[in-house]
């Protein structure tokens, strides 16, 4: 049962998933840095298996206004990718890419497209790494952006995993650019059934 997998994942499997997060996010951070032509740091990815009830608060205050860009991952192991950015980071990041002053309260279509394109690039390199490690052919949907309370964006992104489990696995990394004060949470949320497929490819007999 998929439910059992999420509840009973051992340390070795967790480490393997953390490694996926590490390599995937490392790839994404490199692409991010190249795209922006500046140094981007990332935190060591964390692998969390938490009850859905706790998931709305993983980035802190769930009522906080943020921008969330979501992508669907399709193929052998469906998943959801979500990139959450606080207002100041959106302004700095989009401002840097578009080379203009950006106000979070007045984001226009061009600003949103810029943000979506950045997440597109990050996710693409993340998935490339995941595909190399597993031999899968995962592809991503077009990105979609919502500007709203963090909890509402998170809960909506968790609907697919919620259909088959009361828990969620989150592999998340924080990207940080110290100079321009850009920080964001990049999350890979594998659907419950995908977890077994990923771990099987990595040599785990579940």
């Amino acid at each position, binding site marked *: 049962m998929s439910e059992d997998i999420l509840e009973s994942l051992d340390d070795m499997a967790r480490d393997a998933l953390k490694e996926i997060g590490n390599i995937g996010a490392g790839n994404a951070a490199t692409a991010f840095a190249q795209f922006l032509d500046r140094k981007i740091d990332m935190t060591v990815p964390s692998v969390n298996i938490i009850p859905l*009830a706790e998931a709305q608060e993983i980035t802190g205050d769930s009522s906080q*206004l943020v921008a969330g860009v979501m992508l669907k991952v399709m193929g052998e192991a469906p998943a959801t990718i979500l990139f959450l950015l606080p207002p100041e980071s959106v302004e700095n990041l989009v401002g840097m890419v578009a080379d203009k002053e950006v106000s979070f309260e007045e984001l226009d279509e061009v600003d949103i497209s810029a943000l979506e394109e950045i997440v597109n690039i990050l996710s693409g390199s993340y998935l490339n790494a995941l595909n190399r490690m597993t031999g899968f052919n995962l592809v991503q949907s077009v990105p*979609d952006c919502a500007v709203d309370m963090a909890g509402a964006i998170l809960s*909506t992104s968790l609907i697919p995993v919620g259909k088959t489990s009361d828990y969620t696995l989150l592999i998340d990394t924080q990207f940080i650019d110290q100079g321009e004060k850009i920080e964001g949470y990049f999350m890979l949320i594998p659907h419950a059934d995908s977890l077994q497929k990923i771990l099987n490819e990595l040599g785990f007999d579940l």
Partner: protein
Amino acid sequence: MSADEIKIRMAEYGVVEAPGRLVTIGLGSCVGITLYDPRSRVGGMIHVMLPENKKGLKPAKYADTGLPLLVDELEDEGAKRSRLVAKIAGGAAMFSISDNSSLNVGERNVEKVRQILNDMDVEIAGEDVGEDYGRTMKFSAEDGEVVVSSHKKGEITL
């Protein structure tokens, strides 16, 4: 006034009596439902994620298995089923991608909640549902008042 707010998280529910207060934060496609008995001044809230529990998972996550649970608990605390009035909020479409049925889940949640409340003969006294923004729902068992707040529309009293 002095009663603390009890937070109802996703896929959870809770019941209070006056002057108790309940709150659920960040309803996206999820739906928050409050049920209130004005006579006994007992009320409850549930935060459901999905319409139907087809796989025997956590009952409070779903409209069809969660609402009966909430009603049972309310009756245990002295509410009467025939006097219950409902208020609902949420069921938004947060993202505009429309090629995935799961992203239309907000609408399906609201539909299911309506149907179940109707089956239980519970009247819906107020609602703020659909559209494309997140909501926070606050409930007071003092008078059954519900305040829905959002970044987009501010506060609406149901």
